[in-house]
Every structure is written in structure tokens, then in C-alpha cells.
């Protein structure tokens, strides 16, 4: 416990504030020249610090709650933006990516930290599942941002980068599904349930499989493939945020 003598509400407010600071810093990373780079670096350092603090508060890796999970996804998105942008300077990528990182952090802040890990989630397989899920989603997001940049600039190299991001994102997403399946099997004796969430996750996985295949079809490379890749991220976002809000999900045991 980091705080002694501070109420639950005070602690929650503290963690909300902690996420809003890097959200602002990432947005300021859009500043021209070196200043933008400094703000971005400060945002990443602050963001990693918040995750470390959350880990200390939980006494476990901060991957499981939505508050932390979305924050982790935002951090990976920021880091992948940096990776793809560092050598090539993909035009408009900062204007597309960094606001998404900030918005994700604001969404993460809107979920109150619970600070309790249900016994069924105390499994290394669940942590691996959450970690790779966040990585996969972040890569889908980065790929979609590069895709938007390609549609705006027409630079064919960017479309290749989008594909690269989506391929590795899909592989990591597959890793998250396998580790998630192992976790679920050790917890409940099955690796599949007929729930809307499972169906949408499968649909997302199949959609990216479709994108990876279509890209090999003559005539689909270029703008059509880029648009399909961007739509994929929208489906992934809907799977994460839309179920339970837009499509009602029955309460499950996990």
C-alpha cells in the first residue's frame, strides 16, 4: 500500500489524476521540433511511473483491471508510434496517434481502480493473456494510424508498414488468445464459451486473418488494403469497448 490514512476516494482520485497528466503530456508531444520530443519523453516516463505505482498498490502486475489494461494499451501504442516513426518520420502519424493515446488514457481514468484481484484472475496465464492482448491491440492501433497516414499521403512504404504492424499485432493477438484459453481452461475447465464477447473476439481474429490474406490478392494492395486494416481496428475497439455498452453482455463468472 502506498497510501496510509488516505480514504478510498482520495486514492482513486489520485490515480485518475496520474493518468490525466501523461494524457496532457502526450497531447503536448505534438509541439513542433525538439519541444515535442521532450514532452513525449516526459509523458512516457510519467506513464510508466503511474503503472509502477499501480503495481505497487495492487501488489501484482497492473494488467487485469480495465483502468490499468487500457493504460497499458495506451503506453504500448505510444511506444509503437515512436518505433515506427523514429527513422522514417511518417507524415501525420503524430497527429493521428498521440491524440488516440491521450483519449485512451482519459477512458482508462474514467474506470475507477478496484484494487482487488478476483482469485480466478491470479494466474500467470491471465497476466500473459492481458499483456499480449494489450500489445496486439496497440499494434492494431498503430497499424491503423499508419494506414490513415498512407491514405492521406499516398506513400506506398507506409502501407507496407501498416501491414507489418498488423501482422505482428495479429500474431500477438493469437498469443493472447492461446494464453487466455489456457487460463480459462485451468480456471473453468473449458477454453470456449458461447458468449457475445467470445464471438466478437473470434470475429476480430478472423477479420485480421482476412486482411492478411486479402493483402496477398492482386489488386487489393494499396488503398483497399489500408482501408480494410483501418476498419479492423474499429472492430477491435468495438470488441473491447462496445460489448457490455452497445451490445448488452450477460453477466459471466469472469
Amino acid at each position, binding site marked *: 500500500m502506498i497510501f496510509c490514512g488516505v480514504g478510498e476516494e482520495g486514492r482513486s482520485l489520485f490515480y485518475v489524476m496520474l493518468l490525466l497528466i501523461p494524457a496532457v503530456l502526450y497531447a503536448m508531444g505534438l509541439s513542433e521540433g525538439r519541444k515535442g520530443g521532450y514532452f513525449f519523453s516526459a509523458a512516457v516516463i510519467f506513464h510508466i511511473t503511474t503503472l509502477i505505482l499501480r503495481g505497487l498498490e495492487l501488489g501484482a502486475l497492473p494488467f487485469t483491471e480495465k483502468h490499468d489494461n487500457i493504460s497499458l494499451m495506451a503506453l504500448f501504442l505510444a511506444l509503437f508510434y515512436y518505433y515506427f516513426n523514429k527513422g522514417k518520420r511518417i507524415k501525420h502519424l503524430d497527429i493521428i496517434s498521440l491524440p488516440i493515446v491521450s483519449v485512451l488514457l482519459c477512458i482508462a481514468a474514467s474506470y475507477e481502480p478496484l484494487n482487488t484481484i478476483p*482469485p480466478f484472475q491470479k494466474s500467470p496465464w491471465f497476466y500473459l493473456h492481458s499483456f499480449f492482448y494489450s500489445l496486439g491491440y496497440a499494434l492494431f492501433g498503430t497499424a491503423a494510424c499508419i494506414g490513415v497516414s498512407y491514405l492521406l499521403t499516398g506513400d506506398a512504404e507506409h502501407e507496407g508498414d501498416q501491414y507489418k504492424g498488423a501482422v505482428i499485432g495479429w500474431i500477438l493477438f493469437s498469443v493472447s488468445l492461446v494464453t487466455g484459453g489456457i487460463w480459462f481452461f485451468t480456471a*473453468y475447465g473449458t477454453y470456449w464459451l458461447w458468449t457475445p464477447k467470445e464471438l466478437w473476439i473470434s470475429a476480430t481474429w478472423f477479420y485480421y486473418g482476412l486482411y492478411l490474406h486479402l493483402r496477398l490478392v492482386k489488386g487489393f494492395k494499396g488503398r483497399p488494403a489500408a482501408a480494410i486494416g483501418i476498419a479492423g481496428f474499429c472492430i477491435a475497439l468495438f470488441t473491447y469497448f462496445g460489448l457490455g455498452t452497445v451490445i448488452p453482455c450477460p453477466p459471466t463468472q469472469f
Partner: protein
Amino acid sequence: MPADTILKPMKILKTINNFFLSLKIMSGFFFVFILVACAGSLFLTQNLAFFSGIDETPLFRWLSENKNLKLIWWIYALIVLLGIIATGTIFCTIEGLLKRVNRKLLVAKLSPQIMHIGALLMLFGNLLTASAGFKADILLKAGEVRTVLEDKAVRLESVSVETDKNGYPTNWEAGLRWIENGSESVEHKISPTHPLYFGQYGIYSQAVSAGEKTALIRVCKDPGAIWALAGGLLLIAGGLGFFYSHFYVKPLSGRT
């Protein structure tokens, strides 16, 4: 023998071959599969009572007992679509493996096929899970013996619960013995995500009550799980090979 009697079947075979090898056609089936899966999610949410037992028995048995086609057509559609996609995957894999290739490009050639074999194994695992398997939730009191199947039973020996300062359970354990053909095992402890396996059967702790000294356990047998896992691991291995060969060795050529 007239040339037509030989050529006609050949033509049909060629048409079938072209159909299943066409990426465009198979992509169409992928797309329809996605649409049907999304539609299915709506059927699930709007008919909760009807679908409440779908996870309690193997899928094919549940389908044979629930014949309301208006509500379950999408499950049949998903099965048919998966069958077509799996057949296309088999055709594509065989074609890919038969092509001669330079040793340097071996990873580039094999990795997509490894991914395909992994996906097929996953489907095979799901098929086994859907057709065979066993699941039973059993509520036991301490000292009680309950029959699971004809010659298999389980005895609950003890329960213990750990709670945090707010009384929220942080972990629990149930001590039990597995009885098979009259012989009892030693006492084993099971807790959340730490099941116990006896042959093909797994025993999972779902909940306990320290006050009432009861435990809810689940006994499962899933013959498809190991195949699905093997398929998932192969798919990931192939995916990594594909990534390496595609982005660091040689780009693949386009197809129709």
C-alpha cells in the same frame, strides 16, 4: 473410352480445385463468417434463457436437443462456413507443400503452411470438444461422497478460505479424494486456477463456503483441448516464421 467421359470428371475436379484455392472466394467466406458471428452475438443476448444450457453440454448434443432453427441457424451457418474454410485451407496447404522451393526460402514457404496446419488442428480440437466431452457441477458438503460417473466418485474432505480485511475472498482451497473403481486417491487440494487431473478428467474449484463447509466443484473431460492448444502453438510458431520471412527475407508474391 470416349474422351468426354475422362475429360468431364477432370474438368469438375479442376473447378473444385480452383474454387477452394481461390483466395478471393475463401476471403468471401471469411467475411460471411464474420458477419454471421456478429449476428449470432445478437441472438445470444436476446435469447438468454434459450441459450442458457449451451455451455453445459457438448455443442452437437445441445443442437440435437434444441431444434428451434429460427434461433440457432447461425450456429449451423458457422459450422458450414468453418467446414468450407477448413477445406480451402487443406487445399492451399497441400498446394503450398507440393511446390518446389529454394532452401533459402524454406521458412517463407513453410511458415504459412505451419499456420494453416495449426488453424486446422484448432478446428479439429473444437470439433472434438463439440462432439464429445463431459461436464458436471457438483455441490459437496465436507465428508460427502458424490458419484460423477458410473465408476468415478469424489469425496470432499475440507474447505478453507482466505479473506482480505474487508472480508473479500482472496483465495480458497478444497481438499478432496478421487475414487475410481472403489480405490481412493490421497487427499488433494484444489483452488481457483489450480485444478486436479485424473486421466482425462479435470476437477476445478468454482466456489466454497467456509461457514457451511461446502464446495462447488466442476468435473470436466475435454478431449479437444489438447488439440486446440497444439494448433494454437503451431499457428503462433508459423506466424513468427511468416513475419521473419516476409519482412526480413523475401516478400511473397501476389495471388488471385
